[in-house]
Structures are given as structure tokens and as C-alpha cells.
């Protein structure tokens, strides 16, 4: 080994902020273009027939057709994998398609999943109503009921899924303990870490096996583009039992390929792409991938501001006469306050749920009268966003499901932006004034 290797014992691999800007891309291989080029193309030339056959048969790496992979999207995939500490990633057209692709890569008809009950409403509907149509059933468990996850595991259970911090109630899954439960049962833990981004939490360090993001949110950060991604941790041993034959046995779709044998720590992503993107096709457009890359370049800068503004808003709301309760992991009496310190050392995130005095009518008046905060069905924008979940994101749930998901009619979901904090507070004062006299204030 040369003298160059004798300079010290600390690895000089790039750190988070550098990876946010550079990972996945080498300019000298792209005409020296400093920015990542947008490869706006459907398909890629083959050198010859042998090259084409080798690409289709996964004998060589490369691009065939942009439904399967695309160079701009590939940069995004490597960048997110690097930030998460994962081995591989697969970007999709939305966070929902990333979840669907993950489930369809993991499960077959007749399989079962254990799922946290506190999820985005669309995700609840996927697990509760849509997946059963494919023969995949789910048991919902409240995120704080760690033992409940263990009890819900059946012989045909293929994984545990949950949002690390539940939407919208801010309940936190005890990821290390639930990971142990999953691994003792020989199944993977899949975590949707959209709210955290890898800046706040790296789930692989706490036992997760697959991480999912809606990149639409804080990762892209500007409310401009839809995108999702699944990231593989690489530690899960698919060959430890016979639960995952489509990962371990010869696959007819690639001349008898065993994904686990050939690709080991990247097997899940390889299968999700080779089978899932081929057959379902929820591909991300290169333009949207580029937009997300722009956002990721400033991820840590934005997340610091999101979190500091959120902590200011928590203090403001806690002291406000119109507020009945505030849920945010930074609040000392939040049930998961200590767990949040452990799992989210860089900040507790910028999602706040609060109850407004006066119930549903007051909530509606508040939402209708704030001007700076945007009333819309998104989170993680640079701008402050508000919604009344019971009449918006979770409106397709019946009363019992709302209750099980921990939702109440007085709840406002707040995604704190990076505006000047005084301007956000002033805007909320207008909303609260209207909420105190909901019938006397115009909606417009």
C-alpha cells in the first residue's frame, strides 16, 4: 500500500453538505457541464446488438429506456442514497408510487404487512382499500404501541411499515425497538422519513432497512415538483429465511437471475427497478429530478431555518389564548420528547399540529383568514402551509378511522416555512382573531 494511504486513520469521504451538492455526478463525464444536465430523452443508443442484449440481461450497467432509468434521475438516486447512507435508490414519480413499488417488490398476493396507523391519508387508503385488491392485507397498529407491532406479525407478514413521525399527529415510532421486532421475525422495517429528510434523521442508523421519501416535500423544498424515492440500506439478509422467494429464487423474467445472490446489498433496488419500473412504470421525469436536485443542494441550510422557525412557532402557539393544545416533539410534555432527542438530534422538524379553541368552526375561520400561510394539500414547502386535516387531507376517512388515526376536528396542521418568523406570527394573529368570532368575519 502506497505512502498516500499513510496520512491518517480518518476516512476522507465527503460529508453531508458536500454530498448534497456533488454526489452522483462527475462533470468531466458530461462535457464539463458544472450543472447536472437534463437528459430529456426517452431512449439510448446501443453500440451493437451484443451491447443491447447485455443491457437488457443486466450483464452490464447502463440506460435503455427512461421508464427504467435516466442519467439525470440517476444522479438524484445516487445523491439521496449517499445522504441516507444507503447502497442504492430508485426514484419514482411521487412518494405514493415509491410506497406502492416498495410493497409490490416485497409482497405477493396472500402476503401481509404490519402498518402504523398514523399515516398520510392517501397512504392509509392505499393500505386499507387498494392493496387488498392485490391480495395484500394489512394490520394497523398505533405508532406508540411497540408491542402491538410484535403481536400483529403473522406467518405471511413480509414487513413493517410506518412514518417515523406520523402525519399529522406527530407520534413517533420507536424505530430501534420496532426494527428489532422486525428483524427477530426475519422481515424488514420500511420507514417513510419524508418529514425528517436525512438531515434530521438517517433511519438506517436506527435499524430501518428501506427508507422512503416523498421528495416533493422538504427534499425538493420549493413546492414545484412531484417526486418520490425508495432507498435501500443494504444490511437486510434476504436469504436468511424462505419468506422472500422472489428475491432469492431464480427469476424467470431475467433468465433465472437470483437478485439476492447476484446483487446482495442492492438486490431490493435492482428488483424494484428491473421488475417494478419495467412493469408498473411510475418513472420520474428528468426535469423534475433536476428540480429536486436544485432543492437538495440547499437542504441543510433550509432545514436549519425550518426547524428554528418551527421552534419559535411552538413557543408562540403554546402561549396563545386561542390554542387548546400543541403537538410537536420539541414540547417537553410531548409523549415522544425523549425519543425525538435520540432520533432527531439535528432538529425536531417543522410540522406542528395544534388544536384551535372553538373546534371545527374556529378551525375553518382560521384557515380562511390567514393570508401569508397557504391553505393547500402539501407540506415541506419553503412557504408556510396550513390545512384542516379533517376536512382536507384526511377527509376521505370515516369517523372511526379518523379517531384511530388520532385526528380531531379542532386540529390544524402547520408546515412551518422559512419566511421571517414575525411575519408568520402576525399572519396567525389575523387568523386567530377570525377564529374567536368565526361568524362575524368574512371568509374573503
Amino acid at each position: 500500500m502506497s505512502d498516500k494511504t499513510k496520512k491518517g486513520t480518518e476516512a476522507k469521504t465527503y460529508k453531508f453538505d458536500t454530498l448534497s451538492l456533488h454526489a452522483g455526478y462527475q462533470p468531466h463525464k458530461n462535457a464539463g457541464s458544472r450543472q447536472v444536465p437534463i437528459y430529456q430523452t426517452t431512449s439510448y443508443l446501443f453500440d451493437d446488438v451484443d451491447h443491447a442484449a447485455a443491457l437488457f440481461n443486466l450483464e452490464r450497467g447502463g440506460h435503455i429506456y427512461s421508464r427504467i432509468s435516466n442519467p439525470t434521475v440517476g444522479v438524484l438516486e445516487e445523491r439521496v442514497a449517499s445522504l441516507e447512507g444507503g447502497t442504492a435508490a430508485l426514484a419514482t414519480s411521487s412518494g405514493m408510487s415509491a410506497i406502492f413499488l416498495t410493497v409490490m417488490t416485497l409482497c405477493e398476493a396472500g402476503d401481509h404487512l404490519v402498518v402504523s396507523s398514523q399515516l398520510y391519508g392517501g397512504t392509509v387508503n392505499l393500505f386499507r382499500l387498494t392493496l387488498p385488491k392485490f391480495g395484500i392485507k394489512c394490520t394497523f397498529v398505533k405508532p406508540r404501541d411497540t408491542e402491538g407491532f410484535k403481536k400483529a406479525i403473522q406467518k405471511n407478514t413480509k414487513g413493517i411499515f410506518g412514518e417515523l413521525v406520523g402525519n399529522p399527529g406527530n407520534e413517533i415510532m420507536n424505530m430501534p425497538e420496532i426494527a428489532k421486532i422486525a428483524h427477530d421475525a426475519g422481515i424488514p422495517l420500511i420507514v417513510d422519513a419524508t418529514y425528517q429528510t436525512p438531515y434530521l434523521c438517517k433511519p438506517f442508523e436506527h435499524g430501518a432497512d428501506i427508507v422512503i421519501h416523498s421528495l416533493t416535500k422538504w427534499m425538493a423544498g420549493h413546492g414545484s415538483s412531484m417526486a418520490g424515492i425508495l432507498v435501500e440500506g443494504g444490511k437486510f439478509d434476504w436469504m436468511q429465511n424462505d419468506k422472500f422467494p422472489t428475491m432469492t429464487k431464480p427469476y424467470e423474467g431475467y433468465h433465472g437471475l437470483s437478485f439476492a445472490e447476484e446483487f446482495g446489498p442492492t438486490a431490493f433496488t435492482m428488483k424494484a427497478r428491473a421488475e417494478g419500473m419495467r412493469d408498473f412504470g411510475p418513472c420520474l421525469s428528468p426535469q423534475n429530478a433536476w428540480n429536486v436536485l436544485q432543492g437538495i443542494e440547499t437542504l441543510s441550510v433550509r432545514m436549519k431555518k425550518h426547524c428554528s422557525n418551527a421552534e419559535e412557532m411552538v413557543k408562540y402557539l403554546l402561549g396563545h389564548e386561542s390554542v387548546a393544545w400543541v403537538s410537536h416533539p420539541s414540547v417537553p410534555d410531548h409523549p415522544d420528547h425523549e425519543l425525538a432527542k435520540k432520533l432527531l438530534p439535528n432538529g425536531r422538524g417543522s410540522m406542528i399540529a395544534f388544536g384551535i379553541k372553538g373546534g371545527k368552526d374556529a378551525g375553518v375561520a382560521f384557515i380562511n383568514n390567514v393570508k401569508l400561510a397557504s391553505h393547500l394539500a402539501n407540506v415541506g414547502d419553503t412557504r408556510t402551509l396550513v390545512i384542516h386535516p379533517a376536512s382536507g387531507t384526511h377527509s376521505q376517512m370515516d369517523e372511526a378511522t379518523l379517531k384511530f388515526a388520532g385526528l380531531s376536528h379542532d386540529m390544524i396542521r402547520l408546515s412551518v416555512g422559512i419566511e421571517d418568523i414575525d411575519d408568520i406570527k402576525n399572519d396567525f394573529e389575523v387568523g386567530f382573531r377570525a377564529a374567536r368570532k368565526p361568524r362575524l368575519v368574512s371568509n374573503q
Partner: protein
Amino acid sequence: MKFKVNNEEVFASTGGRPFDKNKPLIIFVHGSGLTHMTWVLQTRYFAFHGYSVLALDMPGHGLSGGKSLKSIEDMADWINSVIDAVGYKEASLVGHSQGCLVTIECTSRYPDKIKTLSLMGGAGAIPMNAELLSLAENNDPKAVDLMMDWAHGPAGHFGGHPVPGLYHINTGGMLAKSRTIKDTLGVDFRACDNYKNGFEAAKKIKIPTLSILATDDKMCPVKEGKKLADLIEGSKVDIIDNCGHMMLLEEADRVLKVLKKFITTHYPPLNT
């Protein structure tokens, strides 16, 4: 596939094709602490183009049983036993890093059996950094982090994996941590450090030999690879720019192209 050598189970990837004894055999030998998976962007190609392929997990590594072998000489003899165990009288060898030391020694010991030798990131000796060796022998994951840092060039550190979506350094690190570090990397590093016969073994080699070297290889720099190649009669050298020690992944296509031309010329495939 799985088979037995010295009563221990051995795993080898056959590149996704059934093992066929009628085809010429290529054996791929991985580097320190790694597994057969490092070869996936070469093995599948050869397996689908007229060869039988064995990308081995060395004893105690990857999916193979047994304990890691403690010397390069023992590993060389073990490769010879593999050839016997699968019922072949000859084979072509491809090695990476430590696998180069093993295949050089094997070729010098069993000259009639080995038909071509391909070396990637090879050198006549691989003395280990004392601190790195100590970290690995003490089961410290920092040893893997350092190895991944030093083993990768620009593609590893920045990205640009030939397979879309894969990230070099974390994938390599996970492979190296797949078994207990001190029992794989620790034993391998010590075996490399102890091995002194590389240059003498090289002088005995009379078969077609190819060395693929990389300009950014910190583990086995170009000058060390050339020093070794100069000792092997008629040896060919191919140097890859802007690439590190993990050239078989960082520049997989370039490696495959050179390897394909070399092996098919000197050890033709069975045309099926």
C-alpha cells in the same frame, strides 16, 4: 452454486447461468474482505457468452462456509482444489487486489492448469498500513471506512455508478461488513502483509497475462502494477484514467471490454 472443497461448503456465482462443464472455465477471485458480488458486471457477461463462470466467495467470506485462509499460499492451493472439485483440468483466472496475489501464486504453482491470467489493481506485494491492519484485526468498522475511502477514485467519491441508482462506497462498505470484519478483512490484510513471494512467482509465469491498472489507485499504484507486469513475460498492461482501485465497478464497461478481448483471444469461448 454450492459445492465442497476440503469438506467445507463453497459458494460461487455462476453469473446467472447453469454451470456447464463443456464450456471453458473462468474463475474470479475477489479482494480482501469482499465477496463474489464485486464481479457482477463482468461475470454475467462471460456466463452468457460461451464460458462457465465461478465468481468465488473465498472460505469464510460471503456465502461460503469455513474459516478465512491465513496465507496467500493456502489460498492459491485452495483455488487449485476448486478447479479439481468442479471437475476441470484447466481454467482462466481473474483476480482483483489480494485476488491478484492469489492468482499469481496459483499460476506459478500450477502452470499447466492455468491458461490465462488477468490482474486488476495488482502488485507483487501489498504491504499493509500498520494502523489499517490493526483496526481490521480489532474488528473496528473504521477499517472498512478507510478501505472504501482509499479504494475508490472519483466515481466512488462523487458517484456515477455504471448501474443506475447504485452508490459505490456504501455498497462496497456493506459487502465488507457482511461478515465479522476481523475474521475476513483482518485475516486477509494479514495474509497480504505476510506474502513476500509475488515477484518470484511472477517470474515463473509463462502464460498470457493482462494487468489492468488505474491512475487514481492508492492501494496498488500504477508504478507497482507495472513493476509486477515487467516481470511477467509478454504481459500486457492497460491503464484506466480517473479511476481508483475498484476499477471492476468504477469503470466496469472499460474493464469488461479489455478483459473480453484478452480472454476470448487467448482462451476462446464455446460457441453455442
